[in-house]
């Protein structure tokens, strides 16, 4: 049952995603891409859970590697997006 619920959530999120950015001005394409790229680093949550004490040595280390990689994705992604948007901001004043 839980899986069905997850699938349900998946389908709704897909439609929401399509709707959300149907009309985005082209100047925002890059920030939108790198911003959503940072969101895909959400897999860090899964990585943290994988590095569980009940995990075997191998799983824990795989989890650790995943944490490092996903965090690079998250932190770097949000920061470059912020840098880019800061440049866009200047022009508006």
């Amino acid at each position, binding site marked *: 049952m839980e899986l069905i619920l*997850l699938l349900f*959530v*998946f389908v709704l*999120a*897909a439609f*929401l*995603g399509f709707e*959300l950015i*149907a*009309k985005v001005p*082209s*100047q*925002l*394409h*890059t*920030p*939108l*891409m*790198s*911003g*959503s*790229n*940072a*969101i*895909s*680093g*959400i*897999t*860090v*949550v*899964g*990585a*943290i*859970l*994988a*590095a*569980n004490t*009940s995990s*075997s040595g191998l*799983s824990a280390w*795989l*989890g650790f*590697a*995943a*944490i*490092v*990689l*996903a*965090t*690079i994705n998250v932190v*770097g992604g*949000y*920061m*470059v997006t*912020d*840098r880019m948007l800061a*440049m866009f901001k*200047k*022009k*508006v004043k």
Partner: protein
Amino acid sequence: MDALTIVNLSYIVAAILFIFGIKMLGKADTAKRGNLVSAVGMLLAVIVTLLSKGLSYPLVIGGLAMGGAVGFVAAKRVQMTGMPELVALFNGFGGLASLLVGLAEYYRAKMSNNLLESVLIDELSSFTATVIVLAILIGGITFTGSIYAWGKLSGKLGGRALTFTGQKAFNALLALGIIAAGILFSSSPANELAHAVLITVLILSLLLGIFAVMPIGGGDMPVVISLLNSCSGLAACAAGFVINNNVLVVAGCLVGASGLILTVIMCKAMNRTLINVLVSGFGATTQANGAKSTGELKPISPEDAYYILEAAKSVIIIPGYGMAVAQAQHAVKELGTLLEENDCEVRFAIHPVAGRMPGHMNVLLAEADVPYEQLAEMDDVNPMIEMVDVAIVIGANDVVNPAAGNDETSPIYGMPIIEAHKAKTTFCLKRGKGAGFSGLENQLFTAPKTRMIYGDAKATVTSMIAQFKES
């Protein structure tokens, strides 16, 4: 409320913040706040996850600290011109992380199986096995595909499309192999051969990522980058199904869907279908196609160009990837300012797929402080381009190639272009006489009203600026 409820409620809040974040990213005046909102969502999701029981904190904290430091430094150091590479690289890391999450979950289940043989089958249901395969497959393709794209974009692998005979068949074979192994694994995940089968899926997926990006030329990179971005979201989503985690599913799916939309927008801007971009090997095989242009190239010096510019009343600047390579955006902006002071109307015409990622030129011109009012989209420029005195093409090629409009044999026929050839005079700044990045010959360069200015774009523009300042 128990801890699990709090965690799950917080995940819902995080999901809401992501949704608002993406929504706000789509509008110019709220974009910066939107990014912040989604970052807060991420922070919340990570913090409540840290409250879960039984984490091995040394690994978790160590991993977060290491990844955070690397990401921080990379984001601070990167030049705006290096942005496409960096986005590709981050993307690849995200994909690999999702792959590892899937793999770790498999080993966890496998180990507990070995300890308690009675729960052998239950531990890994067919569904979980299927999503593990998906996480590894999508994550693997995203990882090697992004790394290969990064290599192409940063010039380490050469930007051209690489094709070999039987490439399509080879890729299809890889895909079939993955599907077969995937089905085999999902149907009997507890089988003793299952581990070997899963590793096969892993290896084939990594190979497919490389071979899928290999035949794609530099000009198609915006499509590839946004598609890979979409894939990294889907990989996170698959990882979410593996560990039964709703926030991963929602956030991953949002990214997957929005990335796909962006990909479609890019494809439309080139009047091509996604399939066409992925399999055509654009650029490597096209030299033979398309009519050879017959006219001659008419070079002029930056000094002569200056005299024409000095008299011009309206100028349109059309930047392309060459401007990024030459890091000429600041010089170009200065030239624009000088022209304006000389009573000339200056506009920057930006093609949706100019450069190597969606919106690439906008980022560079923003960095150089070009006023927002001067930026114009293709559809606004084309109707009035015949009134423009000078169109300056800086390192752009396919996006101004008239063959797209008049040569049915050309591989880019039908792609909307900025009609620079209709301006009264057209200057093309170009490094050398060879064909451009895509390998296509450009009719614009030999058009009667076109003058070529050879050399490094930055040096050329700088010398024009010097002329303006002397007079």
